[in-house]
């Protein structure tokens, strides 16, 4: 597994360190989905600061991952999408619909704290 996943309180934090292959991404997805169940996780944060490209495959995988995790009862926040990457994604129509985003780990944690405090759930 190329992406380290830390457990911090009720949260899982995956910090992508380097460019990922498609298989790495799918593995990350699988591992996170499993661990959400095993670890009674309420929130998942994925730090993509290190990704200098988010193409259609990566966007779709992250979006699907967030949706699967929601179905498993936890929130996902994607943090650290770089400005150039965000521009490119929007040009491509890769909008991560229904996925929560935050600037960085700190903002992401604050957001997860809010959203996992009971009444803060998005349906889609």
């Amino acid at each position, binding site marked *: 597994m190329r992406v380290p996943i830390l457990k911090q309180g009720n949260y899982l934090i995956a910090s992508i360190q380097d460019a990922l292959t498609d298989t790495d991404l799918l593995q990350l997805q699988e591992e996170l989905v499993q661990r959400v169940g095993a670890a009674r996780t309420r929130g998942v944060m994925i730090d993509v600061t290190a990704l200098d490209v988010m193409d259609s495959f990566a966007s779709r995988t992250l979006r699907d991952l967030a949706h699967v995790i929601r179905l498993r009862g936890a929130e996902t926040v994607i943090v650290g999408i770089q400005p150039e990457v965000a521009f*490119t994604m929007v040009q491509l129509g890769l909008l991560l619909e229904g996925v929560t985003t935050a600037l960085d780990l700190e903002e992401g944690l604050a957001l997860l704290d809010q959203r996992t405090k009971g009444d803060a759930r998005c349906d889609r």
Partner: protein
Amino acid sequence: MTVETRVPIKHEADIVTARQQGRALASQLGFSSVEQTFIATAISEVARNIIVYARSGEIILSTGQGNGSKPGIVIVARDEGPGIPDVALAMQNGYSTANSLGLGLPGAKRMMDEFEIVSEVGKGTTITMKKWKQ
């Protein structure tokens, strides 16, 4: 200056290599960081298509000159895979024979200044993409 880099595309990891090489060349040519990202992303899309649809092929990166001798990057993605029966259809947003997003080819086109597909069923596909410095 004539630079030409050939990146064989056989394994998934080659997708990453190709886009990193493309970004490096774009950076050398003085493209902005947004443009570098556009170029790297376009390469990623066509490289993945080689793996998914043709299994193997290659990406050739070089420099070129546009109208008014603007310098730029030229990317050729070639494979000897099954080819694309209807290129206009494949270029449509959302069209995919693999149940994926179908945004790769139209997206790559949007990232670049010039985009051309030559494809013959049973023979293979060659995509040529160019971007000039503004």
